């Protein structure tokens, strides 16, 4: 009995080490999203380019990316070429212009190219709040039924696309057809 008891601290230490080791690989900014698997929240907000009101009906029946961006967001500058490239490949991207001013936002799209089908103007951040947006950029993958399938906090680059989005996106597309 006593000899076995001597090993208890070692076992405890090993267990603790395992947990800590696992913790090293975790990215603490990757939050569990409350909305993955839920419907995209209902909204009624103006469009950036014309003054028409947009709602979830405007992208119902399509597999789309919803990209949260703003001109004040530095990382969005880095992300923008990737969005242009995806749009060029035929990915449907909808912009959510988050807590921004319309005029600089339009200028931004003129200067850097416009990868978006249309842009939802969320000046107060109300839709962002319902989505659980913590900042820009963020990207949501929404299926044809309007269900959020994946969420990315931070820059969407080629590596993230390959790792997190590509397979899901292709699968949703094939389901849709």
């Amino acid at each position, binding site marked *: 009995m006593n000899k076995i008891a001597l090993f208890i601290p070692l076992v405890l230490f090993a267990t603790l080490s395992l947990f800590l080791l696992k913790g090293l690989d975790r990215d603490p900014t990757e939050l*569990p999203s*409350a909305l993955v698997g839920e419907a995209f929240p209902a909204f009624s907000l103006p469009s950036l380019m014309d003054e028409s009101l947009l709602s979830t009906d405007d992208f119902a029946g399509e597999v789309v990316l919803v990209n949260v961006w703003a001109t004040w967001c530095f990382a969005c500058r880095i992300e923008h070429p990737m969005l242009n490239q995806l749009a060029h490949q035929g990915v449907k991207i909808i912009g959510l212009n988050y*807590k921004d001013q319309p005029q600089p936002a339009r200028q931004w799209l003129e200067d850097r190219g416009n990868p978006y089908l249309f842009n939802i103007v969320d000046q107060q*951040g109300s839709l962002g*709040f*319902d989505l659980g*947006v913590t900042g820009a950029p963020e990207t949501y993958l929404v299926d044809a039924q309007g269900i959020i399938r994946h969420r990315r906090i931070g820059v969407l680059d080629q590596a993230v696309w390959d790792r997190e989005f590509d397979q899901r996106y292709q699968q949703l597309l094939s389901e849709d057809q």
Partner: protein
Amino acid sequence: MGRLLVVCSLLLLGTVPSANFDHRSALWASTEVVEFSQPALRERYYQLIQELRCPKCQNQNLADSNAPISADMKAQIQRMLEDQKTDRQIKDYLVSRYSEFILYRPQVKQNTWFLWFAPIGFIFLGAMVIWRRYSSVKTSVQGDKPQLTIEQQQRLNKLLDSGEDNP
């Protein structure tokens, strides 16, 4: 604590000319004075922003955080309090958007049982170990009688005998 914050912020406000007041300044954001129709709501407000966690600047609660998102969340809490919502309703509303990550006091659910009850288990375990140690020390004291050499035994007997002779 909540009241102290308000008093401190009032004192600070008093020392600065209001023309220079910049609401974006980091110093002010955490000590903002929030107006409520009833004082009881303010108590609950400070209670809530103390125990809800900012999803952006992690490891800060809403009260300490200056992130725009926590300002939004605080404004939402204030609105919901004025709308006579219960604390539970407010928390559920925020959790449905920002996930359980934002609860510094997680709900007692199947996946948080370990978190809630493991400390009690560990205390019990510790008590067991101490109790076993203690009882084994006691038995070993009783079990291993000190062995005396014949010489020592004779001396002991002599001492005991002489003690009887001279009470």
